[in-house]
């Protein structure tokens, strides 16, 4: 217990700094959020047009209602699990300040994690409730009954937290690789686009050919977005939920392991360079 207390005492100042940063740059924050939300609305209009142009009530197993929930919950998940660790790591490696991290008595990625959590607290408090409420009100208006399921919702929250952790460690690994590229903008664009596709954020995995979808479901990327969203929508059976949560935990463990390996080799590299 006292170890936990000590752990929290070391890292909560980072969270406080994260909150402060988010509040200070709130104007940037809001502009960024509005910008990102546009793309969800564009997709909403495209899907509305698709359903209006189609004779049937459903599109490859999705109704318009499903599609709207999918779009906005995917947006919410993507927004909340987005991790900036890569840029922080990359920048510190390039300017050499990472060396200072190694002599401090705290874990390198924990500092980032707790700082980002501070940031996340602000984004959750700003968009989570309005977004979920909006989606549920839309559902209610469209079909006249409350479709909100508290159990699915709690499981979604659990899955969302794991998804964020996977995303965080994945981006820490990417940050170390970004060291080798000077065009961080380009590599990040490639990464985001690929992750967006592989995680089902651009096209629901269910719309892809069955074989492709099956493979993508097993990859860590589905755990980033598709899994929590499917759980929220109640698309998964209890067995599927258990299985996909298990898969998420597996990928989280794997990502932590890989990031430790990458970190160790980076430390060696820095030691060799005397950096």
């Amino acid at each position, binding site marked *: 217990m006292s170890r936990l207390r000590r752990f929290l005492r070391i890292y909560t100042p980072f969270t406080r700094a994260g909150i402060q940063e988010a509040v200070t740059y709130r104007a940037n924050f809001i502009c960024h959020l*509005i910008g990102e939300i*546009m793309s969800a609305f564009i997709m909403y209009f495209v899907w*509305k047009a698709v359903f*209006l142009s189609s004779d049937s009530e459903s599109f490859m197993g999705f109704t318009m209602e499903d599609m709207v929930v999918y779009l906005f919950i995917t947006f919410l998940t993507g927004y909340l699990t987005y991790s900036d660790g890569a840029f922080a790591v990359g920048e510190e490696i390039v300017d050499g300040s990472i060396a200072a991290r190694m002599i401090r008595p705290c874990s390198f990625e924990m500092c980032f994690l707790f700082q980002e959590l501070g940031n996340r607290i602000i984004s959750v408090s700003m968009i989570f409730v309005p977004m979920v409420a909006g989606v549920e009100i839309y559902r209610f208006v469209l079909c006249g009954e409350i479709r909100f399921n508290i159990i699915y919702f709690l499981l979604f929250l659990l899955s969302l937290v794991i998804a964020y952790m996977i995303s965080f460690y994945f981006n820490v690994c990417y940050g170390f690789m970004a060291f080798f590229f000077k065009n961080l903008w380009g590599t990040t664009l*490639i990464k985001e686009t690929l992750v967006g596709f592989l995680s089902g954020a651009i096209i629901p995995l269910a719309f892809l050919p069955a074989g492709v979808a099956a493979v993508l479901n097993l990859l860590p990327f589905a755990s980033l977005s598709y899994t929590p969203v499917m759980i929220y929508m109640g698309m998964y059976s209890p067995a599927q939920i258990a299985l996909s949560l298990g898969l998420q935990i597996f990928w989280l463990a794997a990502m932590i392991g890989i990031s430790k390996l990458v970190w160790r080799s980076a430390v060696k590299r820095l030691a060799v360079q005397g950096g």
Partner: protein
Amino acid sequence: MRYIKLHRIFIAQYLKKLMEYKADFTLGAIGLLIAQAFQILFLGIIFSQIPSLRGWQFEQILFIYGFSLISKSLDHLFTDNLWMVGYRIVRKGEFDKYLTRPINTLYHVIAENFCVDAFGEVLSCVLLLGYSIPRLSMPFYWYTIPLWIVSAVFATLIYTSLKIMTAAISFWTKSSGHITHMLYMVNDFSKYPVSIYNRFVQTVITYILPFAFTAYYPASYFLTGENPLFCVGGTVVAGSVLFALAIFVWNKGIGAYESAGS
């Protein structure tokens, strides 16, 4: 004339710099190309289930999408440095340099960078138009090509002017990159026919942030031959008005510039 010569020199210098880094710069182009490819795949999946989207054929949608990339990629290719004004140049006081040179500041900022990343969009654009045009029966007159050029130029001007204005906000606020970003997300609305949106969105992207004139309106004229006055004329008017406004805001902003440091 002098500015054209200068521009050639700036681009030559930029390409020399490019040679220093080589591969890193193609990554941005590849990224943009992949991003477009997934969007097209998405459209393909949709059209595998429905014959048309609110009356628009798949090829027509691809044409509009490709057309939207003409102005977007040209603007990206030539004026990418404006992003840096809002993100860094003003905040860090680097704008001092441009003010001590005997050439137009706006021109100098723009000319200094040439974004090869945008070739990813140029290539997507060429592929989309190259695929869709032969599959469409579009009306063709002697003035079609001049009108294309006119609409491409003024559509690009719409993009660039909006970027100039949002970049210039940083002269007052120190940093405005996030505002440019917000605006840029709105331009994605122009990739699809305006008719799929509701009244509110239509009004915004036609009269307030006239991104619809960068793609849908001119593209629909070239597709159908209808309404040239509004579709192409509107692009010219929107581009000219915004550009005049942008120059005005930029020059006002320079007077408010506070540099950095003591």
